[in-house]
């Protein structure tokens, strides 16, 4: 195989190998519009350089050509960047960043199935691209938190304004973040875990 002169990776670097004790993995999906910082967020918390995986999808067109009586089909390639965090010697967390404006990502086999939850990453200057995502997550019952990525020229946007603008239920957490900063990205994930923990119900009675 000739992969010379490219950055093609033939496999994980030695320091990126998981221990053989790694027994199970969980995943979190990060959704957001183009350029909102998904890959930046994945990269800032991932222990490996983010990788990209692709899937080709065929979807029956929404419109049927009555004259021909044929349903149009479209084929799209959807790419996802993802990263990894070793939680323990046995448990691994994967983060998948996927474009929010894509109507195809819900067709991605298994992307949301079994996911712990989702982070909706928003740019407060362009909230409208998040509406569709949030509606779809709610429809599918995927728990999520909203993270507002701080861009240098983002207008100050109080949480309650954001909640109103996105029509979020009161219980959905909103966190401000800087996707470039590891600790900030980690705190977004922790906010999601705390929210999921609350959703899991009250602690067992003693």
């Amino acid at each position, binding site marked *: 195989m000739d992969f010379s002169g490219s950055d093609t990776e033939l496999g*994980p670097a030695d320091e990126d*190998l998981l221990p053989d004790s790694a027994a199970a993995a969980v995943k979190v999906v990060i959704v957001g519009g183009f350029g909102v910082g998904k890959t930046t967020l994945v990269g800032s918390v991932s222990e490996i350089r983010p990788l990209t*995986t692709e*899937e080709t999808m065929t979807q029956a067109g929404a419109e049927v050509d009555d004259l021909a009586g044929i349903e149009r089909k479209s084929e799209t390639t959807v790419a996802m960047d993802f990263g990894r965090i*070793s939680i*323990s010697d046995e448990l691994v967390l994967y983060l998948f960043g996927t474009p929010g404006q894509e109507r195809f990502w819900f067709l991605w086999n298994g992307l949301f199935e079994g996911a712990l939850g989702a982070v909706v990453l928003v740019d407060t200057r362009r909230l409208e691209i998040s509406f569709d995502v949030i509606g779809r997550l709610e429809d599918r019952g995927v728990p999520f938190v909203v993270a507002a990525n701080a861009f240098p020229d983002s207008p100050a946007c109080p949480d309650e304004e954001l909640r109103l603008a996105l029509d979020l239920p009161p219980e959905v957490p909103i966190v401000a973040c800087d996707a470039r900063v590891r600790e900030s990205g980690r705190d977004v994930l922790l906010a999601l875990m705390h929210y999921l*923990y609350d959703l*899991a119900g009250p602690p067992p009675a003693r």
Partner: protein
Amino acid sequence: MSTTGRDWGDEAPERFYVITRGHPQPAGRAALDLVTLIVARAEPTPSMPPEHAAILRLCGSPLSVAEISAYLRLPVSAVTLLLADLVAEERVEARASVPAALLPDRALLEAVMHGLQRL
């Protein structure tokens, strides 16, 4: 059915995994998730398809289906089909993702929070 080795108590949900090997139902798409961890259990041989050999070489240590797809530059659906063969031939072990039915699980979430706090 023997219960040997099935001591998965509530305290350690991160130990949950399923060896899909030997399951009678198709070990295809349903069994293999993006984050199912794959570990080689055989050496590549010259007679096997090159994609199979490539997967076996990659998976000396556990690697998720998504990572295999990224490194081999193959769509996830293609990798899943290749892996289904390898699982059926018992050349790889598939350590399934934590089943969705168990979610949300407080102990699992605690484990994840603990891990994140060390970042």
